[in-house]
């Protein structure tokens, strides 16, 4: 997998990089703050849904910002948000000790026509009762989507990134992103929408 090499750009710790024409010290910090800090909510939101844990999410984001700062010299002015989120995603994988394959998931067709057992279980009437309101139930449902689908859904629906940007972050072809997104929405529809809305589909 060459992805790690690409996405962990050279860390700017070697003397060679520091001697380049890249801004250093205060200038670099200023530029970094201007471009990357505005996306901290996005970084945290993605980390929050990947880790499903508030404090783990903070650790991931902090780690991501440190790495982002150190490799800021390799940022070439492309869209800042996807650049940063790529690092967030990598830091998450790093934190769970996962290989990049982890978020690659099974091939999409493996999921078609079957819902993961834990998803079905989580929406039994009892657990629905326990869920105070619709929003927290929706959140819980999203959090239980399998990782690749959850990631794609969050990046599209909450971060409003394009297919192309999501594909770059997740390191898969656009077609895969489209399939994952369709499947993620289908799962949510099956779990959350009243049957009456779906009668045409049976």
């Amino acid at each position, binding site marked *: 997998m060459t992805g790690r090499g690409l996405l962990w750009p050279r860390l700017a710790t070697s003397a060679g990089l520091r001697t380049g024409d890249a801004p250093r010290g205060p200038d670099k*910090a200023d530029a970094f703050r201007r471009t990357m*800090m505005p996306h901290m909510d996005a970084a945290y939101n993605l980390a929050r849904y990947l880790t499903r844990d508030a404090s783990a*999410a903070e650790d991931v984001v902090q780690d991501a910002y440190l790495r982002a*700062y150190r490799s800021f010299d390799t940022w070439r002015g492309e869209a800042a948000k996807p650049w940063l989120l790529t690092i967030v995603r990598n830091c998450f994988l790093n934190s769970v000790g996962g290989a990049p394959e982890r978020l690659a998931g099974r091939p999409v067709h493996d999921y078609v026509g079957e819902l993961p057992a834990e998803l079905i279980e989580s929406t039994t009437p009892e657990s629905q009762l326990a869920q105070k309101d619709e929003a927290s139930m*929706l959140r819980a449902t*999203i959090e239980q989507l399998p990782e690749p689908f959850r990631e794609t859904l969050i990046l599209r629906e909450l971060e409003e990134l394009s297919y192309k940007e999501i594909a770059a972050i997740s390191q898969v072809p656009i077609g895969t992103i489209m399939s994952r997104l369709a499947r993620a*929405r289908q799962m949510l*529809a099956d779990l959350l929408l009243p049957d009456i809305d779906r009668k045409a589909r049976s």
Partner: protein
Amino acid sequence: MSLHPDKLLLIHGLVDGELDAANTVAIETHLKSCADCRAELEQIQAVRELIAAAPLRDRAPEGLHKRIDLMVDAEAGPAPRAPAVPHRPFMPGRLAWAGGGIAAHIASGRWASGLATGVIAASLALAVVMPQLAHTDMEDQLVQSHVRSLLVGHLVDIPTSNRHVVKPWFNGKVDFAPPVPDLADQGFPLVGGRLDYIDDHEIAAIVYRRGLHVINLFVRPARTLSLPGSVVVRHEGYNLVRWTAGGLEYWAVSDVELGDLKLFRQVYISRSTPVA
């Protein structure tokens, strides 16, 4: 599932505004004539509305903002140093630790900032030997170590307010015995101890608190050439207070008020059992 699975991704693409003109026209035409695909479209829209209506997007907590801000400060450092040059090429190792900070103050023109005259005289002599190359390396490292300790949730290796636990913990980890007095009644509760690295050497860090602020007290053996005097400096928004006693050299680093940090030094010294 829709009767037209081949159209499914196009419907999603349409909803997401990802289709080019030709595909948009094609799928819209198809939707007009296909009730199944229209139902599919409605379902996608229903899911999207559900998501859009709920407050699902998390915002980064304030504390995280602050920590990352501090981290960028710490990473940015005070000034770029010449990369190809070793940190202190002309400084004998022993001299470096003691003289680095002060020499840098002289070099950077901040020498008038309240140092005792004797210290200035001594430092001037050092400054001649070690010009700009010294930088504020020692202070940099101390402040960065302080900031790091706050950042990574690794403030202490041994978290305890019991001084009888902290002191022996250092035993066998460093080859000196830093005093760990209990200063809680003076408003400086003990948090714990940590092992850190400064100048590639192990250094003991004893962690106290003042209110919500953390005070890192770095301790290591005083070098033969180290200056006996006390030093008070402000660096990168942090206060540093240095003193030597009983053959050990102390640096207290914190963002508390300078007055508080001086008080800390005072009570620490008065509570430490004289080693000599």
